[in-house]
């Protein structure tokens, strides 16, 4: 008992002392291992999961380190294989856990940029990359003019493999179909997959261009599939789909007369067709006397670097990515996996130039469109057109299919009631040129204010609009209509007499504030100075 009582007292003392100690201001100690003492930082790198890709990348990194010995002392590297097709999903699941350098297919670029999961190369690096790589791959690695990734390959497109013993004229689609039917061979063209369906539409000059705002939201679409040109494309597709030998596939080489596919099936093509293998660009088709050359999507693989807070590490990663995408490394990958280089020098290499598939791809690329940022649902909607062409009995059926397509596409962009009610500021302010809506929030009923304050300079011009469209807008009175009052003025747009632009009188940092009466359409706009 006595012993324990003493202990109790000691504890009380300890407690009191520690309380005093705790009251002292504590300095945050410098991190986990406090400095660079000996501990190497681990850099994670993801490359393709294709067998051998990790080994090659490891060897290339070893060469990089041999050339840059001071990095060798600071960092160790860990390479693993992850499919490029879903690298973005894995990275975005948690950016903190994501690798520092990773490879991905170009269609994921916008998503990664929007999620701030990519560090753009520095100014000098950007200039170098633009010089070294072909323009298709540079535009594939850029969003709104800024280069965000390092081009890795330039070979993700489709063209045609065919059986020389069957096909007499690989340039004419109708002849190809006739030859296959005569020989009982399959026509493999995955037309019920939008990536391939688009081939016919782009051939006749149709396009589907989607625009996103700076938040990554699709705001509008310029799509003319539902047009006379689209109808021609549907008819062109029927040349293939109405044939009993048509197979909706891009990989079934057994008993195939032609297969429309890409370089990833090159080995299978050689194995199955052997000496009879022919490789060339897509054929042309003729509808109503006009001939069109089939078009295609082109695509690239890219290498990305994760954003860093440490500039030294960021610089090292940028250098590493530049190294891994340079001429030599791209050629090594070509040798190992037949990946077509994006590097201009590498493209001139004798071996690359002799590769039949890459030659066919290069031929086809003259008719190719880089795959832009397309709404995720478009792929599911457009692929139906392939099946519809097969089913359609009359031209009206084809038109109906196109009408449905257009309606479904436009439905995707339908706005919610909240979005239709919301006001935004648009104009030549804040570095934008009438193409970006600056968001406003509703402070109280009918009172809207921009979420951020903007630096406005004298003579900046802007308007306010509701629901992201021009039907309801606020500006100053329009001289054209003879109104001379200086008050703000709103109207439902019905032709020429829309309000004029509001001009900033005094430069400064302002919030834009709008008071709006729904019933009377009375509007007041104020510039509220931000402190």
């Amino acid at each position: 008992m006595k012993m324990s009582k003493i202990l109790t007292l000691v504890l009380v003392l300890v407690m009191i002392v520690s309380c005093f100690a705790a009251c002292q201001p504590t300095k945050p100690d410098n991190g986990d291992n406090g400095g660079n003492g000996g501990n190497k930082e681990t850099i994670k790198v993801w490359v393709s999961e294709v067998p051998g890709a990790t080994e090659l990348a490891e060897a290339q990194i070893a060469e990089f380190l041999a050339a840059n010995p001071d990095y060798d002392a600071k960092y160790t590297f860990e390479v693993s294989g992850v499919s490029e097709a879903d690298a973005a999903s894995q990275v975005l699941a948690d950016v903190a856990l994501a690798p520092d350098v990773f490879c991905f297919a170009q269609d994921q670029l916008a998503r990664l940029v929007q999620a701030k999961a990519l560090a753009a190369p520095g100014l000098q690096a950007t200039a170098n990359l633009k010089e070294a790589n072909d323009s298709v791959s540079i535009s594939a690695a850029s969003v709104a003019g800024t280069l965000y990734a390092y081009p890795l390959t330039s070979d993700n497109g489709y063209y045609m493999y065919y059986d020389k013993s069957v096909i007499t004229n690989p340039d004419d689609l109708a002849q190809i179909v006739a030859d296959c039917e005569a020989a009982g061979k399959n026509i493999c063209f995955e037309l019920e997959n939008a990536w391939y369906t688009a081939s016919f539409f782009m051939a006749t000059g149709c396009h589907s261009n989607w625009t996103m705002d700076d938040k990554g939201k699709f705001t509008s679409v310029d799509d003319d599939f539902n047009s006379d040109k689209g109808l021609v494309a549907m008819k062109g597709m029927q040349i293939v789909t109405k044939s009993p030998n048509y197979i909706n596939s891009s990989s079934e080489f057994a008993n195939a007369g032609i297969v429309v596919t890409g370089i990833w099936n090159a080995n299978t093509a050689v194995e199955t067709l052997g000496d009879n293998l022919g490789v060339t660009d897509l054929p042309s088709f003729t509808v109503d006397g006009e001939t069109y050359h089939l078009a295609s999507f082109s695509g690239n693989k890219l290498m990305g670097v994760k954003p860093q807070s440490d500039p030294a590490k960021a610089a090292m990663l940028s250098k590493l990515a530049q190294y891994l995408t340079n001429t030599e490394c791209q050629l090594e990958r070509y040798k190992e996996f037949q990946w077509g280089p994006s590097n201009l020098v590498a493209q001139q290499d004798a071996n690359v130039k002799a590769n039949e598939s890459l030659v066919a791809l290069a031929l086809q690329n003259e008719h190719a469109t880089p795959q832009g940022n397309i709404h995720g649902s478009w792929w599911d909607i457009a692929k139906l057109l392939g099946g519809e062409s097969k089913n359609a009995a009359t031209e009206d059926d084809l038109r109906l299919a196109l009408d449905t397509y257009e309606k479904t596409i436009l439905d995707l962009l339908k706005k919610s009631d909240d979005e239709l009610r919301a006001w935004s500021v648009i104009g030549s302010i804040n570095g934008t040129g009438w193409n970006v809506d600056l968001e406003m929030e509703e402070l109280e009923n009918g009172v809207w204010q921009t979420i951020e304050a903007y630096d406005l300079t004298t003579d900046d011009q802007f308007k306010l609009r509701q629901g992201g469209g021009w039907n309801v807008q606020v500006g100053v009175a329009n001289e054209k209509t003879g109104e001379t009052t200086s008050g703000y003025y709103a109207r439902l747009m019905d032709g020429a007499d829309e309000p004029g632009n509001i001009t900033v009188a005094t430069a400064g940092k302002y919030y834009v504030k709008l008071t709006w009466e729904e019933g009377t359409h009375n509007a007041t706009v104020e510039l509220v100075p931000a402190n």
Partner: protein
Amino acid sequence: MKNNTSSIKKSGLGAKASRRISNTLIYIVLIVMTVVWLFPYFGIVLESLRMESTGRVDYMIPKEWGFGNYEYLFTNTNFPTWFINTTIMGLATAVLQTFFILSMSYTLSRLRFKGRKFLMNFMLILGMFPGFLTMILIYKIFGDLGLTHANAPFGLIIVYCASSGMGYYVSKGFFDTISKSLDEAARIDGATRWQVFYKVIMPLSKPIIIYTILMGFMAPWGDFMLARFLAAGDDLGKNVAVGMWGWLQATNPSTMYTRFCAAGVTVSIPVTAVFLALQKYYVEGVTGGAVKG
């Protein structure tokens, strides 16, 4: 149908004849079923031995036979890593999960304490949430601890085992059937509860222990949801299910199809062998578990 008279009354046929007809019908049904049930397995074995192409074809019997697909698995792919990953997970889960499940089910079956009913109801309700959703958080936490990507197998072992106590139903049903008087007799002889558990009950529980071990071993071979989440695409951290699924999803399934079949056969052989060897215990578990719930 022992009773002759009733059969005669019914059909006018002899009992033997009637039985023969019904037995013949049953044999026919059973033979048809055998064919249907084994057909996919024959198919997969045959396709794994097909050499002339690696894609899908519209016939079953290979034109060229050989073990090329198996060779390819072990020389050109990460399949061996996945196989080892899954085996390690299977063994570790078998041991740890058995520990968790047995301690939980034994306690709930044979010990009485405050909060027992509450605990059982709580676990029942908890089990109604889609357990998969826990992965959203676990992925991040394990990521910070370095238990994802290439190390996913270790993370998965923890995930499989930690909450396995919730699956106590089958073995609790078993413990419920062991007579309580055994415990009481031992307690009167001065044994502690630990001694009762260890010396009296455990020796009687061989069937259920083997059943639990078997289930623990099999689970990682078929798990897809959790394994895919933690491996996060890293080829070295996958289990066989996730890895092989990826082969069929890739842009070029035609290059991996027969190899998928070969891998399927390779995976099935050890698992099936273990299972068939311990089939007896499995049957006891299934029957017992169903009846006692």
